[in-house]
């Protein structure tokens, strides 16, 4: 294998690993904030215990999120030196501010955890709000750099030299607003769905006491409400993303949808496999005019197809499948969450039946898969470019050998850490059963 492909595999795997922890870091901190808020409004101790247990889980995840974030940060320079040379001149500011956002998050996290008993409830809510704000800012700041790779702005590249640098134009690039909202909304929804899964799993096991069941029910409903709101927002935002792609990256849109011929009233192909021989999506369902409506706002708008672009600039066509999986998961999650919420309204007394709880358990893993598919789609559908239209991935990659052995070392590291994290989480929560925390009279102390 050549070193460019190996570099992509190594970096892709590292990102796929880090994104699990980074996404949960953004989503779960928001949920802790909401739990604290509920605790304050309702004066219900269950929500205080909830915030505390979610915080402990978050702190364990942070033990992997910080070093894996360090890895991807440093690895950018190791594997993509050509790319980072342009980044340093054009889009270094968001990376720099991200460090301060992280500092802020870490400082207020310590204050929230260690000084909880000395803070008033309002101060505790403010601290955890700053933690959530820091985590969300980090996500937006890193996404700014990512959006800039898709719709580069703020510089000229003449004969390999970077000139006319305008850092603000680079930050405020065309895809930044819509993709930042997408990253935030999906992180909130994933964090919330993971907590939905855990609560649903606990409710499914009959062994728990009445107090525990009430607690898990509260957690489930809080997380479900946030998850549903965030996933509905994500769907609406998807429509804006289609419009942005239509205007800024028509080739990426064409590859995502498997559209070969430029046409008015373009159909939306759901599933199926794009076949370059037949120039059509084979085996999918087509909704006439739907893609035109999504991209242009009118069912007879013209959407550009793959054939408008030289074939060597096409991304791999399997991105259509990744895109479909991401969107399919998103809509299934809205369906499950919406149905569960309606059920709880109409059948208040009956509680959730086992089959519905099983569906709810699936939401967390599904949502995380959606995140992974989405990131892989976004980066693979940008190929063969690292900076769209400006720098080819082959020019960004390192020229050094030895990537194969590094790939092996890092993969081993990630597997070990993933297993250890799960073991540590299991160990902690079985050693500190909920029942005990619910019955301790002094619920405020951390």
């Amino acid at each position, binding site marked *: 294998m050549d070193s460019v492909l190996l570099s992509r595999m190594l970096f892709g795997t590292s990102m796929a690993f880090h994104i699990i922890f980074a996404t949960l870091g953004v989503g779960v901190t928001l949920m802790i904030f909401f739990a604290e808020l509920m605790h304050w409004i309702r004066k219900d101790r269950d929500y205080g215990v909830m915030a505390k247990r979610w915080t402990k889980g978050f702190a364990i995840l942070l033990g992997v999120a910080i070093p894996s974030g360090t890895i991807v940060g*440093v690895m950018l320079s*190791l594997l993509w030196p050509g790319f980072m040379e342009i980044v340093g001149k054009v889009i270094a500011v968001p990376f720099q501010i991200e460090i301060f956002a992280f500092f802020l998050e870490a400082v207020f996290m310590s204050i929230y955890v260690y000084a909880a008993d000395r803070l008033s409830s309002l101060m505790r809510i403010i601290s955890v709000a700053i933690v959530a704000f820091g985590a969300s800012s980090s996500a937006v700041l890193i996404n700014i750099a990512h959006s800039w790779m898709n719709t580069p702005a703020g510089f000229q590249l003449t004969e390999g030299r970077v000139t006319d640098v305008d850092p603000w134009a680079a930050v405020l690039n065309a895809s930044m607003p819509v993709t930042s909202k997408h990253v935030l909304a999906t992180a909130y929804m994933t964090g919330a769905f993971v907590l939905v899964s855990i609560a649903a799993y606990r409710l499914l096991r009959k062994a728990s006491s009445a107090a525990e069941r009430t607690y898990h029910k509260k957690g489930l409903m809080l997380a479900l409400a946030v998850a549903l709101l965030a996933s509905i927002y994500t769907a609406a935002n998807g429509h804006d993303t289609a419009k942005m792609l239509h205007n800024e990256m028509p080739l990426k849109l064409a590859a995502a949808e498997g559209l070969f011929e430029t046409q008015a009233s373009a159909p939306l192909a759901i599933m199926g496999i794009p076949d370059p021989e037949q120039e059509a999506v084979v085996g999918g369902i087509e909704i006439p005019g739907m893609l035109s409506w999504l991209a242009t706002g009118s069912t007879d708008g013209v959407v550009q197809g793959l054939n408008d672009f030289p074939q060597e600039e096409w991304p791999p066509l399997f991105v259509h499948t990744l895109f479909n999986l991401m969107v399919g998961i998103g809509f299934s999650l809205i369906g499950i969450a919406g149905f569960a919420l309606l059920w709880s309204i109409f059948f208040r007394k009956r509680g959730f039946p086992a089959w519905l709880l099983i569906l709810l358990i699936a939401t967390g893993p599904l949502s995380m898969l959606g995140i992974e598919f989405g990131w892989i789609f976004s980066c693979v559908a940008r190929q063969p470019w690292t900076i769209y239209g400006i720098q080819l991935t082959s020019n960004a990659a390192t020229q050094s050998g*030895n990537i194969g052995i590094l790939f092996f070392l890092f993969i081993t590291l990630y597997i070990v850490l993933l297993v250890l994290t799960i073991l540590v989480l299991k160990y902690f929560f079985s050693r500190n059963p909920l029942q005990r925390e619910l019955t301790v009279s002094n619920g405020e102390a951390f």
Partner: protein
Amino acid sequence: MTEPYIAILIIWVFLFVYAIAGSIDFGAGFWAMYYSDRETSATVLANRYLSPSWEVTNVFLVLLVIALVGFFPGAAFYMGTLMILPFSLVLILLTIRSAFMVFSFTVKKYTKALVYISGITGLLIPALMIAVLPVSIGGFIGGGERQYILFNETLASPAVYTHVGFGLATELFLSALLLSDYARESGSEKAYAIYRKNAVILGPVTLFFAVTALLTLIPEAPWMVEAMVDVWYLFALSLIAAVIGYSSLWWPSQSAAPGRPRAGVLLIVLQFGLASFAYGYSHMPYILYPDLTIQDAFTDPVMFRWLLYGYGGGLAILIPAFYIFWRLFMKDKRYLQAKPEEENQY
């Protein structure tokens, strides 16, 4: 002062802070392992220091890398290409170390594993990092278009070993000194005696390696030695600070054992600052001799200005945040007198 020099000065500040914080952090890990079976008071002390500090130390590493990419993208390109193997190893070791730091707070049975992991990585990580220094003085880069480190030449060079020796000696000396201060602060005279003894032994060892590192530079980097002679007074001041700092271990004190470790730490940090500034100054204008100067590697001037604003703005937010932090944890008696098992669980 021109813009590249302002930028390299900022990089030096980050590097200096990371070197000090990292030395103490990694050194404490080593001491905790070294005394794990014999002197529990020394181990407990080192571990108590380690728990809250590694995270901040780690942020400084990322800050250093990001600052290098922003200020000197050309250097990031060069270093990234050349140093891919040592840096990747550092990353792997660092990740294992940090993960175990957090895990062992939660699962007590990992504490034993953590002691060994943080002790061994506490020597390996700094050794790998400091090896970058002699490689950047030139002579170890091969290949035309596709450049790489000549590992055989590097491993055969005495400068590499004297630098690594110097790095490790400094790390252990500095951490022993700081831990002796920390021991006295927390009233553990037994641990104080242990760390003071180590500092007494390691002081001359550090000086020995510092001198040999300079001597091995003479044949390998005459251009740098010439520049060093020009700033001899900085090295002289650094030597004076070292001698006074070392002597502080015998200064009279109110406690049973002699020594004023607080003064020692400050003077040795000052010594380290002077020496590393003089070393870096003599390295100028090269980042990598003779291929890359700070002017070649410098970022776009517009970007440079925005990065400066960024650091200004970031500090304006962080300083009040740290003030609140300090008031809550350093001044509040309710926290300082908490029982040991209640602290640093996160």
